[in-house]
């Protein structure tokens, strides 16, 4: 395997230039720059709000210094609350190229788009110089999410991802799973898999927090399509979702933007701390994907039953489809047919091996389906977190 070596020592599997807007008011200009550059490797991300927020600044910093990212163009209106100077400094400190354009100083829409296109050209020239070095599978970070789950997800796709995770963890890679709100009902069995009893307690607490939070929101993490697909309750959906984690020990509990430094399995606590302030923990699947990428994920394994089609900016998304009818209907969007399990044509282990091999191929440059189709969805909103405690990341192995 080969990777792009960044100056901070991290290794990426893609060589992306990000154009990021720091407020909705700069969105159109940033999008016009991305569209004008007409390259898949020039990608749009951004933050809509005008008020400052520690979480969104942290996530933006982590995304802009992600190993798949070579350089960044920041597009600011000028008067928004986002700390563009700190963002630019963080990117510079990581050894990546960064340019900042402030629309109010540059002379408005047309001039900023023109300046942005010139900046992107420079950033791309520099990105092409990135050193390509050997990269071991142990240096890979892989996240998993489920979206559009149904009654087949927990039978075919999720356990197969679990098999793939077990293989990757044997290789000493980092694997992460998330959405404590979709693990309600699994807290006890999950806590028993923690490498220390103290970590088990933290895992229990994180799921209890999720239950309180979602109860206050008035809705569980349960969509109408889940019910149409045969799932009846949150805990039924949870048991299916939980299978994505495989059977390895849980090495740590992280929050969005925390980057594990040792191989192993990590649970991400995505539910905000304190009294609910900004609404639902994650308004949609892509908000969760963004958080796992901020925590270093090079690749996202996305399991579905109803049939999601999304991809992501920065890191490729691999679709694993559990429902054979959905696979037939949406096969252009699906990378792996885990419907073979429910049809009795393949075992969970066989599909897990298939996913594992595809992870290796995508890491070596093969496009996933959503990536080839140009899906680069991105969502970042307001949240509030406290730092994790020392018991969440035990150092013993």
């Amino acid at each position, binding site marked *: 395997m080969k990777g792009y070596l960044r100056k901070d020592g991290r290794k990426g599997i893609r060589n992306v230039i990000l154009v990021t807007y720091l407020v909705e008011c700069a969105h159109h200009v940033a999008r016009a720059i991305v569209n004008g550059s007409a390259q898949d490797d020039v990608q749009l991300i951004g933050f809509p709000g005008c008020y400052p927020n520690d979480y969104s600044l942290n996530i933006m910093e982590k995304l802009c210094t992600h190993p798949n990212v070579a350089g960044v163009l920041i597009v600011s209106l000028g008067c928004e609350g986002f700390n563009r100077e700190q963002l630019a400094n963080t990117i510079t400190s990581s050894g990546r190229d960064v340019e900042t354009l402030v629309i109010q100083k540059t002379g408005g829409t047309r001039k900023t788009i023109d300046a942005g296109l010139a900046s992107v050209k420079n950033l791309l020239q520099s990105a092409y110089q990135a050193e390509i070095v050997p990269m071991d599978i142990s240096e890979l970070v892989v996240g998993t999410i489920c979206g559009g789950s*149904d*009654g*087949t*997800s*927990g*039978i075919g796709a999720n356990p197969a991802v679990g098999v793939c995770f077990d293989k990757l963890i044997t290789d000493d890679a980092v694997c992460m799973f998330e959405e404590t709100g979709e693990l*309600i*009902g699994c807290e006890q*069995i999950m806590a028993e898999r923690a490498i220390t009893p103290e970590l088990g307690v933290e895992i229990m607490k994180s799921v209890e927090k999720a*239950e309180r939070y*979602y*109860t206050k929101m008035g*809705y*569980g993490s*349960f969509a*109408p399509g*889940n*019910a*149409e*697909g*045969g*799932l*009846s*309750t*949150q*805990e*039924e959906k949870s*048991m*299916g979702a939980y299978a994505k984690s495989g059977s390895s020990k849980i090495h740590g509990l992280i929050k969005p933007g925390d980057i594990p430094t040792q191989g192993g399995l990590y649970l991400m606590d995505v539910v905000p701390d304190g009294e609910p302030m900004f609404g639902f923990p994650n308004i949609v699947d892509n908000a969760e994907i963004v958080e796992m990428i901020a925590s270093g994920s090079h690749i996202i394994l996305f399991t579905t*039953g109803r049939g999601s089609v999304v991809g992501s900016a920065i890191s490729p998304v691999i679709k694993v489809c559990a*429902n*054979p*009818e959905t696979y037939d209907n949406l096969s252009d969007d699906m990378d792996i047919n885990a419907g073979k399990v*429910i*049809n*009795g044509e393949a075992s969970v282990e066989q599909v897990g091996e298939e996913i594992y091999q595809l992870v290796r191929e995508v890491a070596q440059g093969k496009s996933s389906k959503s990536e080839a189709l140009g899906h680069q969805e991105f969502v970042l909103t307001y949240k509030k977190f406290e730092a994790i405690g020392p018991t969440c990341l035990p150092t013993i192995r």
Partner: protein
Amino acid sequence: MINKHFVLLNKEDNVFVCCRELLAGNSITLEGVTVTMTADITVGHKLSRTQIAAGDKILKYGVSIGSATQDIAFGEHVHLHNMKSDYIASHTRQSKVGKNS
């Protein structure tokens, strides 16, 4: 896999999971007993494996996934109309169901 239409995920379970659609009126043999579908059962949906009394736990993957809100006969569709979460209410596009008090 007990036949081409239903799978039993854990021997403790009191529901089967549909892996190939079976429409209302069709009959099938499940663990030696013939049962006629009272509703269209589509992929991913659950069918009761035993008589289940109101208040009993619904077991899938060998663990509880909620409680029956009414008596459920053998071979009946098990879903939002006769079970609910023990944690947090589910919702459809039209309404909330199985709302916890």
